[in-house]
């Protein structure tokens, strides 16, 4: 199983690159608004979880410690979303 992490890390890297480029495109296009914010937050959560799992090695770690990082991501992105939502209203 260890050996199998080789392509994994690379694929993860590729996904991260694509999501980053997508973020950049959204930024350059000047897109904004609730939908875009939601998409970006989703992308942050996905990227963060990928880094945690594939790079930090969290997917092999006992769930309570893993959940600290995942929980951090969810709380931070969730509350950022809430803050942006209150900014709209």
């Amino acid at each position, binding site marked *: 199983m260890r050996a199998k992490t080789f*392509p994994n890390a690379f694929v993860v*890297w590729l996904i991260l690159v694509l999501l980053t480029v997508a973020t950049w495109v959204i930024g350059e296009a000047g897109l904004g608004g609730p939908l875009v914010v939601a998409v970006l937050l989703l992308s942050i959560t996905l990227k963060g979880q990928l*880094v945690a799992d594939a790079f930090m090695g969290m997917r092999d770690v006992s769930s309570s410690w893993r959940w600290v990082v995942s929980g951090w991501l969810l709380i931070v992105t969730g509350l950022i979303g809430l803050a942006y939502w209150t900014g709209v209203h």
Partner: protein
Amino acid sequence: MNVLWPVQLQPDVNAIATPPAPRRVRDLPGDFAIWIFIYAELLVFGVFFLAYAFARAGNVELFNEHQQFLDRTTGAVNTLVLITSSLFAVRAVEAIRRGAAASCSRWLAMAVMSGGVFVVLKLIEFADKQEQGITLSTNTFYMFYLSLTFFHFMHVLMGMVILSAVAVKAYRGAYSASRHTGVETGASYWHMVDLVWIVLFPLVYVMH
């Protein structure tokens, strides 16, 4: 399965066919002390991000107006640099698990050099802002932009120091396939620096 979805939700079919891996559930990689530090840092950054988001909620126009003047391209390139650097750190850990100390040291050196690229790009960005006379006291948006990026910038420098020390130790043969906690410790810290930037870049540079 592996190629399509990198996060293993279920044990791999091949893995079941072959003798099971020695331990499916691992401990946190590296020294537990660094994880106390990592979690503490995540907490600080998390609170800082939320402070940004809620401060923005009260000043939406101001934040939107000044956000567009940030250098998104440099920010995006720096994101790519950091995730690539993180990948190098992953490779370094894989190398030392195989016992390939020289290779581990090389991957670490490449990670540090990528960090150097980040630092240079960031310095150019800071210099540009300095030239425009933008400081922490210009307005709330720039206060957050400079505070968050500078605070993160210092973490990159710190990570480079840590990884360099680990690289030198690896080069000198201090680590082996059975004893390499130091490499995992340094890499874990470096991934945290990456993780934080992954939130920071879209939040401060793009999201509005």
